Protein backbone atom coordinates (compact mmCIF):
# COMPACT_ATOMS: atom_id res chain seq x y z
CA UNK A 1 0.00 0.00 0.00
CA UNK A 2 1.42 3.38 -0.99
CA UNK A 3 0.32 6.30 1.15
CA UNK A 4 -0.05 9.82 -0.18
CA UNK A 5 -0.72 13.16 1.46
CA UNK A 6 -1.68 16.46 -0.09
CA UNK A 7 -1.76 19.76 1.76
CA UNK A 8 -2.02 23.41 0.75
CA UNK A 9 0.39 25.02 3.22
CA UNK A 10 -0.83 28.59 2.75
CA UNK A 11 2.84 29.71 2.47
CA UNK A 12 3.44 28.87 6.15
CA UNK A 13 6.62 27.37 7.65
CA UNK A 14 4.91 24.12 8.61
CA UNK A 15 7.81 21.69 8.29
CA UNK A 16 7.34 20.36 11.84
CA UNK A 17 3.66 19.66 11.19
CA UNK A 18 4.53 18.03 7.87
CA UNK A 19 7.10 15.83 9.57
CA UNK A 20 4.61 14.84 12.24
CA UNK A 21 2.02 13.94 9.59
CA UNK A 22 4.59 11.89 7.69
CA UNK A 23 5.54 10.00 10.84
CA UNK A 24 2.04 9.35 12.16
CA UNK A 25 0.52 8.39 8.84
CA UNK A 26 3.58 6.66 7.40
CA UNK A 27 3.40 8.73 4.20
CA UNK A 28 5.36 7.66 1.13
CA UNK A 29 4.57 10.61 -1.11
CA UNK A 30 4.00 14.11 0.25
CA UNK A 31 2.56 16.74 -2.09
CA UNK A 32 2.14 20.39 -1.32
CA UNK A 33 0.70 23.54 -2.84
CA UNK A 34 1.80 27.01 -1.70
CA UNK A 35 4.95 25.52 -0.20
CA UNK A 36 7.62 28.16 0.36
CA UNK A 37 9.58 26.31 3.01
CA UNK A 38 13.26 25.96 2.05
CA UNK A 39 13.87 22.45 0.73
CA UNK A 40 16.59 21.81 3.31
CA UNK A 41 14.21 22.59 6.20
CA UNK A 42 11.66 20.07 4.92
CA UNK A 43 14.29 17.37 4.35
CA UNK A 44 15.82 17.91 7.81
CA UNK A 45 12.45 17.88 9.57
CA UNK A 46 11.33 14.72 7.75
CA UNK A 47 14.59 12.94 8.43
CA UNK A 48 14.56 13.87 12.13
CA UNK A 49 10.92 12.93 12.68
CA UNK A 50 10.80 9.70 10.71
CA UNK A 51 14.40 8.52 10.82
CA UNK A 52 14.12 7.93 7.10
CA UNK A 53 15.44 9.72 4.06
CA UNK A 54 12.98 11.64 1.93
CA UNK A 55 13.87 12.96 -1.50
CA UNK A 56 12.83 16.01 -3.43
CA UNK A 57 12.59 14.90 -7.09
CA UNK A 58 13.81 17.37 -9.66
CA UNK A 59 11.23 20.07 -10.34
CA UNK A 60 10.62 23.36 -12.14
CA UNK A 61 8.07 24.36 -9.51
CA UNK A 62 8.81 26.15 -6.29
CA UNK A 63 5.51 26.13 -4.48
CA UNK A 64 4.03 22.93 -5.94
CA UNK A 65 6.30 20.44 -4.25
CA UNK A 66 6.72 16.70 -3.97
CA UNK A 67 8.78 14.85 -1.37
CA UNK A 68 9.00 11.09 -1.37
CA UNK A 69 10.58 8.11 0.31
CA UNK A 70 11.03 6.55 -3.10
CA UNK A 71 14.23 7.24 -5.02
CA UNK A 72 13.78 10.45 -7.01
CA UNK A 73 14.09 8.64 -10.34
CA UNK A 74 10.88 6.75 -9.46
CA UNK A 75 8.94 10.02 -9.71
CA UNK A 76 9.70 11.15 -13.23
CA UNK A 77 8.49 14.53 -14.49
CA UNK A 78 6.39 14.24 -17.62
CA UNK A 79 4.81 17.66 -17.80
CA UNK A 80 5.26 20.80 -15.74
CA UNK A 81 3.51 24.11 -15.67
CA UNK A 82 5.40 25.67 -12.77
CA UNK A 83 3.37 26.05 -9.59
CA UNK A 84 0.10 25.05 -11.30
CA UNK A 85 0.44 21.53 -12.65
CA UNK A 86 3.00 18.78 -12.55
CA UNK A 87 2.36 15.34 -14.00
CA UNK A 88 4.71 12.59 -12.87
CA UNK A 89 5.24 8.98 -13.78
CA UNK A 90 5.35 6.98 -10.59
CA UNK A 91 7.56 4.09 -11.60
CA UNK A 92 8.05 1.61 -8.79
CA UNK A 93 9.84 -1.69 -9.36
CA UNK A 94 7.45 -4.60 -9.79
CA UNK A 95 4.36 -2.41 -9.74
CA UNK A 96 2.26 -0.96 -12.54
CA UNK A 97 3.17 2.58 -13.51
CA UNK A 98 0.86 5.35 -12.30
CA UNK A 99 0.49 8.91 -13.58
CA UNK A 100 0.32 11.38 -10.74
CA UNK A 101 -1.09 14.77 -11.69
CA UNK A 102 -0.65 17.39 -8.97
CA UNK A 103 -2.57 20.61 -9.55
CA UNK A 104 -3.16 23.95 -7.91
CA UNK A 105 -5.84 25.86 -9.77
CA UNK A 106 -6.35 29.63 -9.57
CA UNK A 107 -8.32 30.95 -6.64
CA UNK A 108 -11.91 32.14 -6.70
CA UNK A 109 -10.56 35.48 -5.46
CA UNK A 110 -8.94 36.08 -8.83
CA UNK A 111 -10.83 33.91 -11.31
CA UNK A 112 -14.51 33.64 -12.17
CA UNK A 113 -16.19 30.20 -12.02
CA UNK A 114 -16.31 30.25 -15.83
CA UNK A 115 -12.56 30.78 -16.11
CA UNK A 116 -11.91 28.07 -13.53
CA UNK A 117 -14.08 25.71 -15.56
CA UNK A 118 -12.22 26.45 -18.78
CA UNK A 119 -8.92 25.83 -17.00
CA UNK A 120 -10.19 22.39 -15.99
CA UNK A 121 -10.88 21.67 -19.66
CA UNK A 122 -7.29 22.56 -20.54
CA UNK A 123 -5.81 20.46 -17.74
CA UNK A 124 -8.10 17.53 -18.56
CA UNK A 125 -6.95 17.71 -22.19
CA UNK A 126 -3.30 17.71 -21.12
CA UNK A 127 -3.90 14.68 -18.91
CA UNK A 128 -5.68 12.78 -21.71
CA UNK A 129 -2.82 13.54 -24.12
CA UNK A 130 -0.25 12.32 -21.61
CA UNK A 131 -2.27 9.17 -20.94
CA UNK A 132 -2.42 8.50 -24.65
CA UNK A 133 1.33 9.00 -25.00
CA UNK A 134 2.05 6.70 -22.05
CA UNK A 135 -0.40 4.07 -23.27
CA UNK A 136 -2.38 3.77 -20.04
CA UNK A 137 -4.81 5.69 -17.88
CA UNK A 138 -3.80 4.65 -14.37
CA UNK A 139 -4.01 8.27 -13.34
CA UNK A 140 -4.48 10.05 -10.04
CA UNK A 141 -5.37 13.74 -10.07
CA UNK A 142 -4.79 15.44 -6.75
CA UNK A 143 -4.48 18.98 -5.50
CA UNK A 144 -6.19 22.18 -4.51
CA UNK A 145 -8.67 22.63 -7.33
CA UNK A 146 -10.16 25.74 -5.71
CA UNK A 147 -13.52 24.27 -6.71
CA UNK A 148 -15.95 21.95 -5.00
CA UNK A 149 -16.59 18.47 -6.41
CA UNK A 150 -20.02 19.61 -7.64
CA UNK A 151 -18.78 22.58 -9.69
CA UNK A 152 -18.98 22.47 -13.48
CA UNK A 153 -15.24 22.31 -14.16
CA UNK A 154 -14.87 19.23 -11.98
CA UNK A 155 -18.07 17.54 -13.18
CA UNK A 156 -18.31 18.45 -16.90
CA UNK A 157 -17.36 15.81 -19.46
CA UNK A 158 -14.72 18.05 -21.07
CA UNK A 159 -13.45 19.05 -17.63
CA UNK A 160 -12.35 16.46 -15.07
CA UNK A 161 -15.57 14.49 -15.53
CA UNK A 162 -15.48 13.50 -11.88
CA UNK A 163 -18.41 11.37 -10.76
CA UNK A 164 -19.44 10.46 -7.24
CA UNK A 165 -20.37 6.81 -7.83
CA UNK A 166 -18.02 3.92 -8.51
CA UNK A 167 -20.49 2.05 -10.77
CA UNK A 168 -20.76 5.09 -13.03
CA UNK A 169 -16.98 5.63 -13.11
CA UNK A 170 -16.41 1.95 -13.82
CA UNK A 171 -18.13 2.36 -17.20
CA UNK A 172 -14.85 4.03 -18.19
CA UNK A 173 -16.18 6.82 -20.34
CA UNK A 174 -19.29 8.23 -21.96
CA UNK A 175 -20.01 9.64 -25.37
CA UNK A 176 -21.58 13.06 -25.76
CA UNK A 177 -22.22 14.48 -29.24
CA UNK A 178 -20.04 11.74 -30.74
CA UNK A 179 -17.11 12.65 -28.53
CA UNK A 180 -15.83 10.23 -25.90
CA UNK A 181 -14.86 11.51 -22.47
CA UNK A 182 -13.14 9.34 -19.83
CA UNK A 183 -14.42 9.50 -16.27
CA UNK A 184 -12.62 10.22 -13.08
CA UNK A 185 -14.04 8.78 -9.87
CA UNK A 186 -14.31 11.56 -7.33
CA UNK A 187 -14.52 10.08 -3.82
CA UNK A 188 -14.57 13.51 -2.18
CA UNK A 189 -18.37 13.78 -2.50
CA UNK A 190 -18.74 11.36 0.40
CA UNK A 191 -16.70 13.61 2.68
CA UNK A 192 -19.05 16.56 2.95
CA UNK A 193 -20.68 17.08 6.33
CA UNK A 194 -20.54 14.87 9.36
CA UNK A 195 -20.82 11.46 7.73
CA UNK A 196 -17.50 10.42 9.26
CA UNK A 197 -15.25 11.46 12.13
CA UNK A 198 -13.35 13.71 9.77
CA UNK A 199 -14.02 17.46 9.44
CA UNK A 200 -16.99 18.45 7.20
CA UNK A 201 -14.66 19.75 4.47
CA UNK A 202 -11.09 20.78 3.80
CA UNK A 203 -11.54 24.53 3.62
CA UNK A 204 -13.84 26.82 5.59
CA UNK A 205 -15.09 30.09 4.16
CA UNK A 206 -18.10 31.88 5.64
CA UNK A 207 -18.84 34.21 2.75
CA UNK A 208 -20.83 37.35 3.58
CA UNK A 209 -23.35 36.80 0.79
CA UNK A 210 -26.69 35.08 0.26
CA UNK A 211 -25.30 31.70 -0.71
CA UNK A 212 -22.38 30.27 1.19
CA UNK A 213 -21.46 26.65 1.93
CA UNK A 214 -19.16 27.44 4.87
CA UNK A 215 -17.31 24.15 4.42
CA UNK A 216 -15.82 23.40 1.01
CA UNK A 217 -13.76 20.55 -0.39
CA UNK A 218 -11.28 22.27 -2.65
CA UNK A 219 -8.57 19.74 -1.84
CA UNK A 220 -9.40 16.64 -3.78
CA UNK A 221 -8.15 13.37 -5.18
CA UNK A 222 -9.73 11.84 -8.27
CA UNK A 223 -8.82 8.49 -9.82
CA UNK A 224 -9.36 7.03 -13.25
CA UNK A 225 -11.51 3.90 -13.55
CA UNK A 226 -8.34 1.88 -14.24
CA UNK A 227 -7.34 2.47 -10.61
CA UNK A 228 -10.72 1.91 -8.95
CA UNK A 229 -9.71 -1.51 -7.64
CA UNK A 230 -6.50 -0.02 -6.25
CA UNK A 231 -8.15 2.85 -4.44
CA UNK A 232 -9.68 1.95 -1.05
CA UNK A 233 -12.32 4.53 -0.12
CA UNK A 234 -11.83 3.98 3.57
CA UNK A 235 -8.21 5.14 3.38
CA UNK A 236 -9.22 8.59 2.12
CA UNK A 237 -9.33 11.06 4.97
CA UNK A 238 -9.44 14.76 5.63
CA UNK A 239 -7.17 15.21 8.62
CA UNK A 240 -7.78 17.50 11.56
CA UNK A 241 -4.57 16.65 13.42
CA UNK A 242 -0.95 16.09 12.51
CA UNK A 243 -0.99 13.12 14.84
CA UNK A 244 0.14 15.11 17.87
CA UNK A 245 -1.28 18.60 17.55
CA UNK A 246 -4.68 19.62 16.11
CA UNK A 247 -4.78 21.36 12.76
CA UNK A 248 -8.13 22.88 13.71
CA UNK A 249 -9.06 25.52 16.28
CA UNK A 250 -11.52 24.87 19.11
CA UNK A 251 -14.30 25.89 16.69
CA UNK A 252 -13.39 22.89 14.53
CA UNK A 253 -12.35 25.18 11.71
CA UNK A 254 -8.83 25.07 10.22
CA UNK A 255 -6.34 26.74 12.53
CA UNK A 256 -4.94 29.17 10.01
CA UNK A 257 -2.65 30.85 12.55
CA UNK A 258 -0.94 27.71 13.86
CA UNK A 259 -1.27 25.69 10.67
CA UNK A 260 -2.90 26.29 7.28
CA UNK A 261 -6.31 27.54 6.19
CA UNK A 262 -6.65 24.22 4.34
CA UNK A 263 -6.71 20.76 5.89
CA UNK A 264 -4.59 17.97 4.45
CA UNK A 265 -6.00 14.92 2.74
CA UNK A 266 -4.44 11.48 2.78
CA UNK A 267 -5.17 8.43 0.64
CA UNK A 268 -3.65 5.13 -0.42
CA UNK A 269 -3.14 3.08 -3.52
CA UNK A 270 -2.69 -0.66 -3.35
CA UNK A 271 -0.39 -1.42 -6.26
Amino acid at each position, binding site marked *: MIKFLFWNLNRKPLERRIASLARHHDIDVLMFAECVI*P*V*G*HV*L*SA*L*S*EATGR*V*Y*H*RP*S*SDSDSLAIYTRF*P*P*DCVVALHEKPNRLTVRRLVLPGRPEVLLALAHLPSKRHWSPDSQGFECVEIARTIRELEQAQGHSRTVLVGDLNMNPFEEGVVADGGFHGVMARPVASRGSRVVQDREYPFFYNPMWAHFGHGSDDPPGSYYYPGAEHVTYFWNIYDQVLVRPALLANFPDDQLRILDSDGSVPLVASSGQPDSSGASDHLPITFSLSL
Partner: protein
Amino acid sequence: MAESTRDLWPPDLGVSSLVPPLAILREQAALLSQKTKGFLEGEVVTRAERGPRNKAEPFLHEFRIRAPALGDYRYELFDVRHDFELYPVVVRVYPADIELEADCEDKFLELLKQIFSYDSTRRVIGALLANSGFQEK
Protein backbone atom coordinates in the same frame (compact mmCIF):
# COMPACT_ATOMS: atom_id res chain seq x y z
CA MET B 1 0.26 -29.70 -39.31
CA ALA B 2 2.54 -26.97 -38.00
CA GLU B 3 6.27 -27.37 -38.51
CA SER B 4 8.26 -27.64 -35.31
CA THR B 5 10.40 -24.59 -34.61
CA ARG B 6 14.08 -25.16 -35.32
CA ASP B 7 16.02 -23.64 -32.44
CA LEU B 8 19.48 -22.73 -33.67
CA TRP B 9 20.47 -20.83 -30.54
CA PRO B 10 23.03 -22.34 -28.19
CA PRO B 11 21.72 -23.40 -24.73
CA ASP B 12 24.09 -20.92 -23.13
CA LEU B 13 23.31 -17.46 -24.47
CA GLY B 14 26.38 -16.05 -22.78
CA VAL B 15 24.59 -14.13 -20.04
CA SER B 16 27.28 -12.25 -18.17
CA SER B 17 27.69 -12.53 -14.43
CA LEU B 18 29.53 -9.21 -14.40
CA VAL B 19 27.88 -6.29 -12.62
CA PRO B 20 27.39 -3.58 -15.27
CA PRO B 21 29.08 -0.23 -14.59
CA LEU B 22 25.63 1.41 -14.71
CA ALA B 23 24.35 -0.73 -11.82
CA ILE B 24 27.43 0.15 -9.77
CA LEU B 25 27.02 3.85 -10.50
CA ARG B 26 23.32 3.81 -9.58
CA GLU B 27 24.11 2.07 -6.33
CA GLN B 28 26.68 4.73 -5.45
CA ALA B 29 24.29 7.52 -6.49
CA ALA B 30 21.64 6.13 -4.12
CA LEU B 31 24.19 5.91 -1.32
CA LEU B 32 25.09 9.57 -1.68
CA SER B 33 21.40 10.46 -1.22
CA GLN B 34 21.18 8.26 1.87
CA LYS B 35 24.38 9.66 3.41
CA THR B 36 23.29 13.26 2.91
CA LYS B 37 19.64 12.66 3.93
CA GLY B 38 18.37 13.70 0.53
CA PHE B 39 20.27 17.02 0.57
CA LEU B 40 22.34 15.76 -2.36
CA GLU B 41 21.09 13.33 -4.95
CA GLY B 42 23.39 11.26 -7.10
CA GLU B 43 22.14 11.06 -10.65
CA VAL B 44 23.29 8.84 -13.47
CA VAL B 45 22.33 9.91 -16.96
CA THR B 46 23.01 7.33 -19.65
CA ARG B 47 23.38 7.81 -23.36
CA ALA B 48 23.83 5.04 -25.84
CA GLU B 49 23.89 5.63 -29.54
CA ARG B 50 24.13 2.94 -32.14
CA GLY B 51 26.26 3.73 -35.15
CA PRO B 52 25.89 2.16 -38.59
CA ARG B 53 25.99 -1.66 -38.76
CA ASN B 54 25.92 -1.96 -34.97
CA LYS B 55 29.32 -0.30 -34.67
CA ALA B 56 28.66 0.80 -31.16
CA GLU B 57 29.34 4.27 -30.03
CA PRO B 58 30.45 3.98 -26.44
CA PHE B 59 27.83 3.87 -23.73
CA LEU B 60 28.20 7.06 -21.78
CA HIS B 61 27.11 7.38 -18.16
CA GLU B 62 27.34 10.82 -16.59
CA PHE B 63 27.54 10.86 -12.81
CA ARG B 64 26.10 14.07 -11.44
CA ILE B 65 25.34 15.49 -8.04
CA ARG B 66 22.03 17.35 -7.79
CA ALA B 67 21.31 19.75 -4.94
CA PRO B 68 17.51 20.01 -4.55
CA ALA B 69 17.85 22.85 -2.01
CA LEU B 70 19.87 24.89 -4.49
CA GLY B 71 17.23 24.99 -7.19
CA ASP B 72 18.33 21.59 -8.53
CA TYR B 73 21.87 22.80 -9.20
CA ARG B 74 23.81 19.98 -10.85
CA TYR B 75 27.53 19.27 -10.75
CA GLU B 76 28.97 16.67 -13.10
CA LEU B 77 31.63 14.75 -11.24
CA PHE B 78 32.75 12.30 -13.92
CA ASP B 79 31.58 10.23 -16.83
CA VAL B 80 32.14 6.61 -17.72
CA ARG B 81 32.38 5.16 -21.23
CA HIS B 82 32.38 1.59 -22.36
CA ASP B 83 31.59 -0.51 -25.38
CA PHE B 84 29.05 -3.35 -25.67
CA GLU B 85 31.55 -5.28 -23.63
CA LEU B 86 31.06 -3.93 -20.11
CA TYR B 87 34.76 -3.63 -19.42
CA PRO B 88 37.18 -1.93 -19.85
CA VAL B 89 35.71 1.41 -18.87
CA VAL B 90 37.22 4.84 -19.40
CA VAL B 91 36.45 7.37 -16.70
CA ARG B 92 36.84 11.08 -17.30
CA VAL B 93 37.00 13.04 -14.06
CA TYR B 94 36.00 16.71 -13.91
CA PRO B 95 37.03 19.47 -13.57
CA ALA B 96 40.63 18.27 -13.88
CA ASP B 97 39.69 16.40 -17.07
CA ILE B 98 41.77 13.38 -16.09
CA GLU B 99 41.13 10.11 -17.93
CA LEU B 100 41.48 6.86 -16.05
CA GLU B 101 40.88 3.29 -17.18
CA ALA B 102 39.70 0.13 -15.42
CA ASP B 103 39.75 -3.20 -17.22
CA CYS B 104 37.55 -5.15 -14.80
CA GLU B 105 34.83 -4.68 -12.18
CA ASP B 106 37.18 -4.76 -9.20
CA LYS B 107 39.43 -2.11 -10.66
CA PHE B 108 36.39 0.01 -11.52
CA LEU B 109 35.21 -0.18 -7.91
CA GLU B 110 38.67 0.78 -6.70
CA LEU B 111 38.77 3.68 -9.12
CA LEU B 112 35.37 5.00 -7.97
CA LYS B 113 36.47 4.81 -4.35
CA GLN B 114 39.53 6.84 -5.29
CA ILE B 115 37.45 9.49 -7.13
CA PHE B 116 34.98 9.83 -4.23
CA SER B 117 37.94 10.36 -1.89
CA TYR B 118 39.63 13.06 -3.96
CA ASP B 119 40.00 16.37 -2.12
CA SER B 120 38.32 18.08 -5.05
CA THR B 121 35.26 15.77 -4.79
CA ARG B 122 34.98 16.28 -1.06
CA ARG B 123 35.31 20.05 -1.49
CA VAL B 124 32.44 20.05 -4.00
CA ILE B 125 30.23 17.92 -1.76
CA GLY B 126 31.11 20.00 1.30
CA ALA B 127 30.29 23.24 -0.49
CA LEU B 128 27.00 21.93 -1.86
CA LEU B 129 25.97 20.66 1.56
CA ALA B 130 26.95 23.89 3.29
CA ASN B 131 25.05 25.98 0.77
CA SER B 132 22.05 23.66 1.14
CA GLY B 133 21.95 24.25 4.91
CA PHE B 134 22.85 20.66 5.77
CA GLN B 135 23.71 20.01 9.39
CA GLU B 136 24.93 16.66 10.57
CA LYS B 137 23.16 15.54 13.72
